[in-house]
């Protein structure tokens, strides 16, 4: 499956700034994107980022297995925002550093647990998870609650300057 994603460059800069803020105990911050979608003539699916929402400091919980995680309140708020606009929901965080980022084993394990749950609220849209580096991004998206996720093939941060890159 061919998956492409476009995001406004200015929004990506805001996301990086937000995710780089220190938290009292969480080593990594996370946030949520909402996306629209479009079918292209080659059968590919184009995902178009609509908006970003940060996770409130109070919605992080200490977790002995991985240091910290976000609680159900953060997911509920994100799902409500996505539901109102019939958007796809994307969990996003940053690993920093340059180059194409790679999901950790913990990222993949937890993503496979929570992303399919997004289909309960919004079954008509694709949902996924993304990871940013300082200059690239990678993503996994689900088109069905029970299907396997597919990686983003290419990403464009649209603005001036335009940045397009292969995301695999």
């Amino acid at each position, binding site marked *: *499956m*061919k998956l492409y994603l476009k995001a406004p460059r200015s929004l990506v800069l805001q996301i990086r700034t937000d995710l780089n803020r220190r938290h009292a105990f969480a080593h990594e911050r996370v946030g949520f994107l909402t996306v629209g979608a479009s079918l292209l003539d*080659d*059968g590919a699916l184009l995902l178009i980022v609509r908006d970003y929402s940060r996770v409130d400091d109070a919605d992080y919980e200490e977790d002995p297995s991985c240091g910290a995680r976000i609680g159900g309140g953060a997911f509920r708020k994100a799902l409500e925002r996505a539901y109102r606009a019939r*958007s796809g929901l994307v969990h996003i965080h940053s690993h920093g550093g340059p180059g194409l980022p790679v999901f950790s084993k913990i990222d993949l394990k937890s993503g496979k647990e929570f992303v399919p749950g997004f289909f309960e609220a919004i079954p*008509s*849209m694709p949902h996924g998870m993304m990871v940013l580096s300082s200059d690239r991004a990678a993503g996994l998206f689900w088109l069905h609650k029970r299907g396997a996720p597919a990686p983003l093939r290419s990403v464009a941060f*649209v*603005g001036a300057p335009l940045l397009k890159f292969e995301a695999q």
Partner: protein
Amino acid sequence: MDWYSRQSFLGHESRHALHAARIAVVGLGGGGSHVCQQLAHVEVGKIIAIDPDRIGASNLNRLVGGTRLDVLLHRRKTSIAKRQIRRVNPNARVLACPHQWQKCLDVLKWSDIVIGCLDRVRAKDELDAFCRRYLIPFVDIGMDVHQISSGYLIAGQVVLSFVGGPCLRCLGVVTDTVLADEARQYGAAGANPQVVWPNGVLASSAVGLAIQILTPWQQLPVEAAFLQYDGNVGTISESHRLAAWSGGCPHYPAEQRGDPGFRLQGHSFA
């Protein structure tokens, strides 16, 4: 010295960026024909040329590449644009769409930049809305000839519209009054007054805005621009309307991005 040596100042990766770029040109008359030729010269890799019309005798005063033979043969403007591009750069990938742009949505959606060279304000408005929906920088050019007490005034504008910045409605290029006026009358000097040299100035400015998006030529590239052309004086300058914009476009909310009413169900994906 090769083709690229005189524009290497655009940046060390700019040649690759230009080769990888997909630019759609909507409207291939006086403005669009200039734009296509310049995109070929700077080595843009893929040019999508869109226009449903065929050349007529009244186009010969400004349509770059158009010939008397083309008029006799009633050639499509897309065929002339493709020929002109290929004469300059045989390696350019040219997709000719001899239809209204509304019938070319699939190829437009995946364009990196759309340059609109449309006469009608209503058409500019609709193309701006489309580009906002699919997150595409939109460069619009337009010129008019107005009758004034001392003769005629040639005026025009080049607008770069993109999310986060003002749209054509925010900048007053599209207003309900203008749309209503357009419905009644076009221009003041007869039907569609157009001449080649203002088209050239406006097209060149539009290409400049596109290139600063694609290459690291400018240290501070812009995502919004409103350049006004005074063809009688021969100046092009930033419109005060851009500086006066208060921020926050109310016309195209982010939640409208993507296909309206998109649903996964019923689609098969490659």
